[in-house]
């Protein structure tokens, strides 16, 4: 009996962690395989994939942001009430009264914006090394879907504060949906549950933001990570990366524990610290309560849609609907059209100069119109320098 009690902590630990702290390579592989969280990685990886330049940790940063968003989002859900009468006031209370409420909300906001950026850059990075080509086509398509869902999550969350910023951004955003021919007005009404942004729109956006999209998102993220492993891990060029130059000195493959896991935890901690620092330094905006009778001029969509709004300003259908839709569909079709694997794992290789140039140009174009729409558009959407 006495021994049972004495050994209780050890037994509990052993019941959870079958392997214990790995002491050798064999144990570390066993640890990777036996753990549900760790076996998302292969037990052994190519040394090249550890280099920072191999991935810039962009996928990892996106996952870390998603995790932080989940944690902070659940905390915010304890206090937030999705009804126009009280939504704004609960936002104020989250800022002023809820313990660490402001920090939580700031983290949620900045992590969401950060995720939009890291997911986009992740996609760019994968394209530049040819990571979308066979055998990774399906995972590329899932990745594009995840990018779209990241934007959708951010867009639906944008309405919830129910301030002027939220209300008018979603009004503008949903009006862009209405520019889709034939189904546009109906689609907008389906999304809003009304002809205007109101009570039912807030409820729908809340459910989409907190339940529907995250559920699909987490399933797709699991699939995405699983396929990264099954499609052969991170794509790396064995000829370029520093580890590979000394390939004779080391093994072809090294155990994921602790090399990869330790790096991932370190980068995750760094990203968390960075977001915390941003949140302490800058607070998430909360403008006056939504007022359908007071239209700000200019009324702007969330910043990541301002490129589309800028294009829609030139032509509602061609700029606002056709170009973005063609871009997303084109992205998904890309790996099935551009199939020849050339110089995998090398950034912007000479062999793929045309594709890479086109892709970078396209993304730069979207970045440029987004910057113009964000910074250089004033009242009446007139071009203006600072202040807009």
């Amino acid at each position, binding site marked *: 009996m006495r021994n049972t009690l004495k050994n209780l902590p050890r037994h509990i630990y052993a019941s959870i962690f079958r392997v214990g702290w790995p002491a050798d390579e064999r144990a570390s592989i066993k640890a990777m395989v036996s753990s549900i969280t760790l076996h998302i990685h292969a037990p052994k990886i190519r040394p090249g994939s550890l280099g920072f330049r191999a991935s810039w940790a962009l996928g990892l940063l996106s996952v870390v942001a998603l995790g932080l968003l989940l944690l902070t989002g659940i905390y915010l859900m304890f206090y937030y009430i999705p009804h126009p009468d009280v939504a704004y*006031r609960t936002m104020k209370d989250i800022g002023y009264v809820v313990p660490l409420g402001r920090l939580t909300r700031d983290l949620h906001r900045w992590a969401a914006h950060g995720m939009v950026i890291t997911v986009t850059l992740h996609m760019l990075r994968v394209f530049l090394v040819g990571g979308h080509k066979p055998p990774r086509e399906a995972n590329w398509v899932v990745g594009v879907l995840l990018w779209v869902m990241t934007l959708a999550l951010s867009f639906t969350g944008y309405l919830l504060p129910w301030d002027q910023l939220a209300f008018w951004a979603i009004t503008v955003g949903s009006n862009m949906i209405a520019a889709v021919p034939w189904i546009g007005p109906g689609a907008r009404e389906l999304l809003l549950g009304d002809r205007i942004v109101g009570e039912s729109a807030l409820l729908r956006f809340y459910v989409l933001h907190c339940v529907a999209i995250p559920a699909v998102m987490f399933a797709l993220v699991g699939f995405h990570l699983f396929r990264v492993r099954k499609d052969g891990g991170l794509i790396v060029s064995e000829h370029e990366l520093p580890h590979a130059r000394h390939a004779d000195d080391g093994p072809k493959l090294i155990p994921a524990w602790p090399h990869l896991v330790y790096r991932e935890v370190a980068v995750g901690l760094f990203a968390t610290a960075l977001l915390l620092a941003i949140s302490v330094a800058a607070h998430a905006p909360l403008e006056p309560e939504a007022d359908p009778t007071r239209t700000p001029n200019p009324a702007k969509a969330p910043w990541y849609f301002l490129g589309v709004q800028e294009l829609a300003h030139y032509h509602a259908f061609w700029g606002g609907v056709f170009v973005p839709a063609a871009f997303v569909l084109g992205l998904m079709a890309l790996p099935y059209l551009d199939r020849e694997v050339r110089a995998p794992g090398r950034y912007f290789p000479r062999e793929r100069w045309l594709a890479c140039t086109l892709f970078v140009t396209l993304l730069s174009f979207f970045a440029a119109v987004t910057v113009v729409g964000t910074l250089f558009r004033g009242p009446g959407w007139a071009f203006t320098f600072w202040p807009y």
Partner: protein
Amino acid sequence: MKHYHHPAWLHALFALSALAIVALVGLAIADEAGRPTKLEQRIVPALGLVERCEQCHATDSHPGDWLTHHPVERFGCTPCHGGQGLGITKEEAHEAALDWERPLFSPLEREAACGRCHGGDEVPGAPNLSRGRHAFRERGCSGCHEVPGEPEPDLAPDLDGLAAKLDPAWVRAWLTDPAVLLPSHAMPRFALTADQIEVLVAFLFTRPAPSLPAVPEDSGDADRGKQAIARRRCATCHVLEGRGGVFAPSLDQAGVKIQKPWFFAYLQNVHALRPRSRMPGFTLPAGEAADMVAYAAEQLVPDTPEMPWSKFDTPVQSERAPEGHALFVKLGCRGCHRVEGLPPLKRTSVPLGNMGDKRAFDLPHQNFIDHVPDVPTWIHFKLWEPRGFDLPEAKPSSMPSYAHLGPDETFALGIAVASLHAAPLPSAYVRPARTASQALPAGETGRLVERFRCLACHRVLGSGGDISRVPLDGEGARTKPEWVASFLKEPLTLRMNQAERMPVLGIEEVDARRLAGWIDVTLGDDRIPPAPPPTEAERDAGAALYGARGCPQCHVVAGQGTMMKAPVLDGAGARLRFDYVLAMLRDGPAVVPARRHPDARLPEAEARAISAWVMSLPGRVEHAPAPQ
């Protein structure tokens, strides 16, 4: 395990990041530890307010007696003070932050906030708001700006027949800069080009003008004219030789500005030439009119040998009249001036009904001044220099400059405009303007009130002007109709040290009686109860009490008395009603309005005695001398 070397930077990244997380979360917790944990919260459901001002502020130390009229339970704090009621720390509650755009109100905004509930021109405790609302109407703002409930202004002269009245050169000079001609001009200064002025003149001087008979040669005498003008008290409203009232255009240059036949005809029948003028309907005999015209030609001329407009003396380019017509409409001249045959007023500028909902940074501010603290100040600058806020690429603002009003009035206008909100308040909070009842009586009396423009100066039943300090409401309860009739015919002052202002309108005996009868019957005051008539014993006791209660400190009786501020009481019995004097002495001016009388509140017996004695005083023939 041979390959377990992590690079040093990775360890550093791990350790520093972990430390930073602990430090930052600690910082956030420490920051929150300073926040209050107990909330003083006030909820005003009718206004949808949740306020935490009383976390720090005690309402019983609020200065003034504002909270007795505006209990905090009903009004909260932020409707008057602005700020963020939900905030807990001073910074959150008081200041503008990234997430709050309405900091505590500036004093100007605070006064404008009164106008959120209070309608009308007279808002108690808000002198600048009251002044601004009055000015809003007086300056014709609603001629260009739509404001709900604000009628089309009716102030400026009709411009029909201008060719018979003015010289085109004078009009050109006037449109270039009215201040050069008249320092106290009412019309704002439009920034017009010479070409624009030319086409406007072409338009105005090609309108049909009445043909008026010339003034008979040698028929007027300037000295007699000057006396007539003094006797009629024109200076109550007009400036003459540098002195006089500001309620009507200055006449200092009338001798050269106004063409003689027009002036002559106008004085003989004011409303025939200007049916909508606010001036009482004088109908002077031809001789008196000719005297006044002669006086104007001799005395009401500029000092300088050269007329300031002589350089503008060029022929009217009649063929450009259609251009002038279009410009007249486009510039919004129609907002203040009427011209026959023009379409109904279409306001040319932005509506102002929601200016109170805006914040200073909602309004354009380039080119002029970087930081305008609040909307009233923005409007003040805008009135001062209307093009100062023009956006770089927009066409220049066509609003005229109101710099001549002076900063007090432009700030007041800013406050008045900033009190306009689009969203309605719960009706229980709205204090509408006292609705002006139909003050004009029907029939012949109504025509007299209209003809002599009584309401241009006097307030009657909630409408009318404020040129006179004597509202006519309750006049029937204060004075006797016989005296009113005699006063209307010959308005002589009752206060020795006060200038006589009521114009001598030349009212006929029968008309004076009719008006006095209307005042007697209609304009009573039910706060003055009927009292039994005084007895002789009371009258005898009153003589001593009159001195004992200090009445001679102000009133003069039979030449005896000191300060001469108050009306002479000789003959008071013929003028005043016993009931009124009694009620005033007994109940005080809070109950019975008397313009400057001290709050006497004497016992009933004393009040009756003094009243009885005053009413018995005999009249004296001579009055205070008329001022020059």
